[in-house]
């Protein structure tokens, strides 16, 4: 057979593509369960770490069930949609593209040593691809207890530094409402005169050099997501009881 003929070349390429495609498809589908289990436990691990509970992936599920007392799917007006399971049924990547009226906003309520925390999942865009995270608010629904960020494809050493503990720790103690009660969020700022983040009332954290767009993405994502929770966050406990 002439190995240099066009027919042979095309035939070889076609056969190769078929074989490779079926091998890869088989592997991907047979490992899918294990992989999504890892992703699920990592999500629990991330949620827990915003309220200061560090655990490995294996222990995450048990602790998650211990500390997370409520998993709410909120409507735009702050009321709870009982038909939706916040943890497993809301995929934020799809949800953020919807209109605010039809979106459901997941919220996790945690109780640790009698203190209550409200954990809001975040999702936005960095420089190259999606960024996401979780932010935990204290009982006053204003002060940040902890934050976790992750990303899909930010530049290693620059934008990807948002996943570093020292960056996430800068958010602790910052407040999302200003003194007149308006939601201002937290800006990742380059013109911050407070590089050690000792001023916790300025609604700013120090930016990372070389990661301006990722940093802006973090600021935008925080304010964009939190504004949808305003009806819930601003409601008094009495209102909440009424809504529930």
């Amino acid at each position, binding site marked *: 057979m002439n190995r*240099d003929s066009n027919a042979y*070349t095309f035939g*070889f390429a076609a056969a190769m593509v078929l074989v490779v495609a079926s091998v890869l498809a088989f592997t991907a589908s047979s490992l899918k369960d294990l992989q999504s289990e890892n992703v699920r436990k990592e999500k629990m691990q991330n949620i827990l770490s915003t309220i200061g509970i560090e655990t490995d992936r294996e222990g995450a599920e048990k602790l998650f069930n211990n500390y997370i007392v409520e998993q709410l799917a909120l409507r735009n007006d702050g009321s709870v949609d009982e038909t939706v399971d916040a943890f497993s049924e809301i995929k934020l990547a799809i949800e953020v593209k919807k209109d605010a009226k039809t979106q459901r906003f997941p919220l996790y309520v945690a109780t640790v040593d009698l203190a209550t925390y409200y954990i809001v999942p975040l999702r936005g865009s960095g420089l190259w691809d999606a960024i996401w995270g979780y932010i935990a608010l204290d009982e006053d629904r204003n002060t940040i207890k902890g934050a976790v960020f992750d990303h899909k494809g930010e530049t290693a050493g620059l934008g990807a530094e948002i996943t570093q503990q020292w960056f996430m720790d800068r958010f602790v103690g910052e407040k999302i409402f200003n003194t007149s009660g308006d939601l201002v969020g937290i800006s990742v700022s380059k013109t911050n005169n407070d590089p050690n983040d000792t001023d916790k009332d300025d609604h700013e954290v120090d930016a990372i050099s070389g990661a301006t767009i990722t940093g802006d993405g973090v600021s935008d994502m925080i304010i964009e997501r939190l504004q949808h929770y305003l009806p819930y966050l601003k409601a008094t406990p009495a209102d909440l009881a009424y809504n529930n």
Partner: protein
Amino acid sequence: MSKPKSNKKPAIFFVAKEREPLFSKKNRGLLKDPLDDNNPITVQVLGICSALAITVQLKPAVVMTLSVIAVMAASNVIVSLLRNAIPNRIRIIVQLVVVASMVILVDQVLRAYAYDVSKQLSIFIGLIITNCIVMGRLEAFALGNGVWKSFLDGVGNAAGYGFMLILVAFFRELFGSGKLYGYQVIPDSIYEMGYENNGLMLLSPMALITLGIIIWVQRARNRKLIEKN
């Protein structure tokens, strides 16, 4: 072909047919040379990019080494098996497809069984595809040699690459974070005496300098590597 009687066999035919032992001197050379005399990183200066990027700690370096060994051994074997069937005009594409599918397999397996490591290596696993060592060995060796020899060549070169990776990572983790494989090895008492970890070791430039020192030491010991001019 009818089998000729052994006493009538022409001498040259007999020699060619003689089976080479699995680990003949030449075959051992295929495994051993890339570790020192013909090291992909320090002598051929290939794969430097990943050598700088993933040598901050030992653990990812070890996993990267194992992944590259798996990818190179498997793709060398596959290309060597197909070497008489691959159409010459699209051989580079075929090699790329083989390497890329091996890499995706490794990535999927890591994601299922070593999730943390796979997150840490993230893009570098994908970048094995573009690691010059892999394509280079396919083109230069596997296309023209038998399966067993190609397998040894793949393992040898990947091991030579990994050896350097682990060596650099050893020094960077030791001096950069005072740990080895995640365990603290420099005792607290030394820190109390005023010793501090060298933060610069964690950055890529020090990987290049570490690598440079390794190349220097290697050439000082191995005279064959010194260029005459």
